[in-house]
């Protein structure tokens, strides 16, 4: 489980892999994977997130959010 970073995809906004897939294409540390044409989060990789925000910029409908769990302290 992730200790420091939580990445979420708002399924109600996400366009799916075929129509978009931006998050999957740009993430440099493979936090996103694909299942049934939808992006999914690889939980064991979340703590590798470099906070580059490329996934947020690549996501047209703003479906991706990143939470720093250590700031919720």
């Amino acid at each position: 489980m992730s200790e420091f970073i939580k990445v979420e995809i708002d399924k109600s906004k996400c366009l799916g892999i075929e129509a978009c897939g931006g998050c999957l294409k740009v993430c440099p540390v493979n936090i996103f994977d694909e299942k049934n044409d939808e992006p999914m989060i690889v939980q064991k990789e979340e703590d590798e997130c470099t906070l580059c925000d490329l996934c947020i910029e690549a996501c047209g409908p703003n479906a991706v959010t990143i939470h720093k769990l250590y700031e919720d302290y």
Partner: protein
Amino acid sequence: MRLLEHESKEILGRYSIPTPKGDVVGSAEEFNMDGPVMLKAQIPLGGRGKSGGVIEVSSAGEAKEKIEHLLSTPIRGYRARKILVEEVIAVSQEFFMAVTYDTVAKDPLVIFSKEGGVDIEDLSATQPEKLQKELFTVRARLPQYRAREIVSEAGISGRKLLGLGAILSKLVDIFLDYDATVVEINPLALTGDGKLVALDCHLEIDDDALYRHKDQAEKLSLHDRYEGGRKSTDFELRAAEIDNLDHRGVAGRMIEFDGLLGLIIGGGGASLTAFDAVRQHGGRPANYCEIGGNPSVLKVKELTKHILAKRGVEKIAIIMNVVSNTRVDLVARGVVKGILEAGRVPSDTVAVFRVPGAWEEEGFKILSKYGVPYCDRSVSIDEAAKMAVERTRC
């Protein structure tokens, strides 16, 4: 990884570079040659001739006696398990050639001299004009025409020029094909009948490239190569496995010590400074371990767990120079996560975290959350080492 002479010569043979006819024996009973021969102890050291590791013998009886002698006599901390037996070559002239990296120019470098058989470091210091040096590129390699130009500049012409140029070009191929850090033929002999023969060869493969040369890497685990020298401990081998978990950064170049303070250190040579500072303040390191180049959280986490799993290690100090190429927050994540997965408490386990540099504000937020004692660049490496030692004593 330094190959033994006979292992290096086997590779020369694959590139059609002539070597003396010979055999490798592990006992006197295996000796089966006629006439005068050279006996060469197979140990991973240069200067064997001066240390009694190379002997010329004239008869089979003498050869067997000297083989037993070489197999039973330590040479500068090593004992040979194999002896290379070779025909004696009548030498009319000796040359030197080598390929290595020029770490200042950051390019591969070929070196040639028509005065081989000597200590090349001495020649370089006293008569550098006798060495021909030429940088080349990995992509272009060293075509034979360029190799011949280098040899020609040393004042060599005719048939010798063609032969030496061909061998020099092949030596560059070996250097690049085997991911070597150095390959050297010294001496390369011109025989009485005009042939060129490599009498000795020194080849070292970059340890980080050994995964591409499994046939060579497997030799490291052979127990009959030689005795002596320091072998990696299981603790160090496991750390190397962690370093190979992914390609990102370095986290696992480990040397094990018998102290109780775990160390994760680095930063452009600062690892040695930090290690010495810990020792100077009376600390007893459990290990020396470099990190750098922005290792993944996974690697730092596994490394932290590995160090903490060592018997008696209660605390760990993370000390680096000011770094721009390693993210402080990613190191902090790895360290904290490793401690948590080891079932320990971060605030009790970290003696000091002194890693200033890129993304330090983010890293300090993480460390603050877990109560880990940290310091920024206003605290020197020496002061951080002192803190670590004092907190380890508590």
